[in-house]
């Protein structure tokens, strides 16, 4: 069995994919079944289950300390779960050490070996699985071509820029053609502009290689832009799993709504399709009667135009900030506060304490499903 695995490792990438795809294309590549991790009294991850489907880019998103990195490290094998099982390509790997797991990881610090050249860094994994020298050289070349760094083979990591180091780390992880690529906050060491450019490059690269990817970040923008699906984690538990659009437009919990993007959250009661907030603001909503939490995303709120036919709300501007492409206003209406994001023509941005008339696109008013009673 093991010899067969190694044989597969050594043959071409496509061959391997066809082979494993032939086995069962719909089976998840990574599967976590009820994993928990406790450090003393601290519950880092609690009874967490999720599947990473073949070829998808799944993102674990949450605030720092929420357990997302611990979860990633349990997949890689650096952290042993207190309970539950980890499956990679259908095999239970919970008891296997990291060097027997078919994963390729890019560390937050990249962890390139400082005493080895870029070429040697990439060849290291291939050496470990016994790929012969000529094949190794060919594969290193192939990887460097993939990340467009062929001219840097003989350089040392410290001679490279942060962005180049990241690409080498990626090439090193991909050289072994792992079943799953693990990325641990790969952009956190880069400055803001570079970050935006590199994540677009990363997405293109991952699409080109077509590899299943599990990605950890605390940056919601990164998650929304890169992922096929997002898993929002808070305090070691999953809050919501869904596409970026699901997560943003239809948050399942108050935490998700507040963590992803800006929004106004109102508590109140629904009766007959009308929501009345505790402060007294009335809004139309499509939700069952009873106590309800409402989320309104700021881009659905607009200043009133001549004739839109929607009900108008009159309020007072509490704060008004200019961000260039748009302005962000906080408006006090009927004892509540609503956030609004919109572009005003030059000179037309309302000042603090101005009266303002707004309308809300009904699509942007959403009720958060009531949490189960026992939680």
């Amino acid at each position, binding site marked *: 069995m093991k010899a067969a695995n190694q044989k597969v490792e050594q043959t071409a990438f496509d061959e391997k994919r066809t082979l494993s795809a032939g086995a069962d294309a719909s089976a998840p590549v990574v599967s976590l079944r009820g994993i928990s991790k406790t450090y003393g009294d601290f519950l880092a991850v609690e009874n967490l289950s999720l599947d990473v489907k073949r070829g998808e880019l799944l993102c674990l998103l949450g605030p720092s300390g929420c357990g997302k990195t611990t979860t990633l490290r349990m997949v890689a094998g*650096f952290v042993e779960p207190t309970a539950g099982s980890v499956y990679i390509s259908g095999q239970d790997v919970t008891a296997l050490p*990291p060097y027997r797991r078919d*994963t390729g990881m890019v*560390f937050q*610090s990249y962890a*390139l070996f*400082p005493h080895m050249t870029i070429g040697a860094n990439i060849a*290291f994994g291939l050496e470990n699985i016994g790929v012969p020298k000529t094949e190794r050289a060919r594969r290193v070349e192939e990887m460097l071509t993939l990340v467009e760094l062929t001219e840097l083979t003989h350089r040392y990591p410290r001679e490279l820029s942060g962005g180049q180091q990241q690409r080498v780390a990626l090439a090193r992880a991909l050289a*072994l053609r792992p079943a799953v690529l693990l990325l641990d906050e790969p952009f956190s060491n880069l400055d803001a502009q570079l970050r935006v450019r590199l994540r677009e490059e990363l997405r293109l690269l991952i699409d080109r290689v077509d590899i299943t990817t599990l990605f950890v970040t605390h940056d919601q923008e990164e998650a929304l832009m890169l992922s096929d699906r997002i898993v929002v984690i808070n305090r070691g538990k999953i809050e919501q799993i869904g596409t970026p659009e699901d997560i943003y437009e239809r948050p399942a919990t108050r935490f998700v709504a507040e963590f992803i993007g800006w929004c106004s959250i109102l508590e109140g009661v629904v009766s007959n399709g009308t929501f009345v907030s505790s402060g007294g603001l009335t809004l139309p909503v499509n939700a069952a009667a009873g106590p309800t939490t409402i989320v309104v995303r700021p881009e659905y709120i607009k200043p009133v135009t001549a004739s839109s036919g929607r009900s108008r709300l009159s309020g007072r501007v509490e704060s008004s900030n200019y961000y260039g492409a748009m302005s962000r206003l906080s408006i006090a209406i009927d004892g509540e506060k609503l956030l609004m994001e919109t572009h005003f023509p030059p000179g037309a941005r309302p000042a603090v304490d101005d009266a303002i008339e707004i309308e809300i696109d009904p699509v942007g008013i959403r009720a958060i499903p009531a949490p189960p009673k026992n939680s």
Partner: protein
Amino acid sequence: MRIDAIDVGLKIAGAIVRPLVYLTLCLPAAIVVVTSFTAGESLRFPPEGFSLRWYQAAINSEPFMDSLWASTKLAFIATILSLAIGLASSFAIDRFRFRGREAFRTLTLSPLVVPMVVLGLGLLQFLSWMQLNQTFAGLLIGHVLITLPYVVRTLTASLVLFDRTLEQAAMNLRAPPWRILWRITLPLIGPALVSASVFAFVTSFGNITLSIFLGFAGETTLPVQIFTYVEHSYDPILAAVSTIVILVTLIVIAIVEKLVGMETVA
């Protein structure tokens, strides 16, 4: 104003003290080297004339050459053993949180604190109880003991600074533990290993107290040989032998410097 005055005062004091310190450090060695070239019969500074006769005498002297060899051999083996034990201890201290870890660390460093005479006396009794006194093994045990603190100190300091994500990255790249040690950890703490060996070698090579306590008729170490020689004669052969030792030490340090230097550049 007052701060300025203090600053100026300290600066002047420094300018005076610094050369004095360097002078005190270098002068004894310089005097020995200069004296070794004397043509006269006695160990005296300034030397009388110039000749290499005492070098010839030193090289032809069996006791000195034998003891030089004995010291080198002893220091070499002691260094190897000390590195092996010290590396294992440093790993344990750095990587694991076990009961008595602090006590263990203190224990490995304690030979530095215990006066050498006390250590020598204790070892003498211990070794004779073990039936190991007056043997090379006994002398070696003593030397490993006194070199160990330097090795553990240097290596733990280096391991604390070692980025363990590198080991995890290697593990992720299918490297089993022994391979990680060999390809990642050891090469990266290489400079510390080299300086630990130099410390250990020099400490063992220059030690006299312990060697007197644990020495035996068969093999005398160089410091002991010099020490006993001085008791009855005082001729320039000592200066010649010492100069040879200084030269060898300088060569070793130069080689090491070059090796470690290259490690940092590469």
